[in-house]
């Protein structure tokens, strides 16, 4: 599903974010990316959704080399991904329903399909009563559940999550993890960046550890 070959990323000023990373993540896996702040976790995720381009090396997703993707192909790649961020990145001027519907609107799905699918997804994350609320009217945990619903509404091949529980209390964190687990159980490959070791112990999966941009450990459970 995801293959990285000798991937490096350097920013201007000789700042090396990733250095010679090679790894393979199979379809249906649940993988933690962990390591201290500045280790390169977010950079690696950014390379996977083409927000950054590697300085060296190749990245294959589902057999396609995304390293050379131009601006016209990137949106199509992202439609097969679900992305969740620590700061949610919701559309604050749109309702909960419109936020979750947006990826389907982008794909040009029929309105009836969109309505049905969005409602199912919001029910799955327990927010079916909050359809017409705006993100800023919700708690942090609820906003993150909206973000997860938006990521899952398209049945993504891969779910990329960048510190998704970083701002949440322990109870909400467990809710979010349960949602990730059920998506993974339905066949979605999950790559989650976190430095929360308790979480990793609580939900043991394969752990890839980065340190100063290098692959320090790759421990399968």
């Amino acid at each position, binding site marked *: 599903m995801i293959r990285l070959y000798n991937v490096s990323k350097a920013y201007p000023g000789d700042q090396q974010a990733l250095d010679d990373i090679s790894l393979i993540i199979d379809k249906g896996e649940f993988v933690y990316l962990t390591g201290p702040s500045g280790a390169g976790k977010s950079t690696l995720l950014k390379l996977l*959704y*083409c*927000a*950054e*381009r590697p300085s060296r090396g190749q990245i294959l997703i589902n057999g396609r080399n995304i390293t050379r*993707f131009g*601006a*016209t192909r*990137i*949106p*199509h*790649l*992202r*439609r097969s*991904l679900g*992305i969740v961020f620590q700061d949610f*990145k*919701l*559309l*604050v*001027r749109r309702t909960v329903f419109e936020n979750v519907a*947006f*990826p389907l*609107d*982008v*794909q*040009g799905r029929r309105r009836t399909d969109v309505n049905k699918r969005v409602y199912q997804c919001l029910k799955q994350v327990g927010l079916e009563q909050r359809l017409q609320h705006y993100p800023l009217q919700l708690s942090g945990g609820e906003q993150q559940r909206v973000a997860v619903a*938006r990521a899952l509404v398209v049945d993504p091949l891969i779910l990329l999550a960048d510190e998704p529980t970083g701002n949440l209390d322990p109870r909400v964190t467990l809710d979010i993890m349960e949602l990730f687990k059920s998506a993974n159980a339905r066949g979605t490959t999950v790559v989650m960046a976190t430095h929360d070791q308790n979480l990793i112990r609580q939900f043991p999966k394969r752990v890839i550890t980065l340190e100063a941009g290098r692959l320090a450990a790759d421990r399968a459970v």
Partner: protein
Amino acid sequence: MALRPGYFLHCALRNMRQSPVLSLAAVVTVTLALSLLALFAIAVLNVQQLLLVWGDESAVVAYFAVEPTAKQQQELLAGIGARPGVAGVDYVSSTAARERFRERLGVDADLLDGLDPDLLPASLEIRLQPDGTAALHLDNLVETLRKDARFDDVRHGREWLAKLEAFLQLLRAIGAGLGGFLAFAAVIIVANTIKLTLYARQDELEAMTLVGATSLFIKLPYLVEGAVQGLLGGLLALLASFLAFHIGLRDSLGELLLVTGVDSIAYLPPAWQVGMVAAGGAIGLLGSLFALRKFVRFGPA
């Protein structure tokens, strides 16, 4: 990607609702620019009409010193009518001239009451061939008439038409210059309105790109927003110019052109009205296009 026009219109209208002041500024600017253009267009249109009327009317008028007898009239009509470049000759008696003037004065016709009934002299109105051959013989004809002692004065409209044509060109140039400047200003203001909205929504645009929205999908609502603002401005300008026309412009232009022979003052014809609203849409669309250049970025710099 299947594009749903209704979806983009919905997004555009929501954007406008969420930034009412900026949207209003854009609409008002387009309205002002197009209203001024419309007023100039009405003036140009009617002066142009005057040129056509004068062009069609007799090109040479010879005023009699003394009203001729019926026999003299017949001789003159036959003689001048046979000259090269002359399309026809009409005799206008002093009474007929007075009646015609009375009609043109309309409600002010009583100004003529109490004046000498022979105030306006009898005349010959000589129409020239419209194919241009008349120009070759015009000087000769005017010279002959002026030498004829039966005529007190001879006037021909070529100098007047040339002056009016020059005035019309000036009016057109002022209209085009001012209108072009205002339209350009409207484009810039619409562009800045959309730009301010885009700056305020940078995070939103980024979020949209992250779920796979294409550049076109993100930009279309803003293009529609610009076009809607422009169309609204065009419609309001049409309404404003229509009201201005009926409230004051028609009467004042009418008084100005009262003695020139133009029967009625015309508003913009339907094709021009449609053109004005379309111009509003184009101004808005152009403004949005300017604003959206290089604004939506997807991936690596």
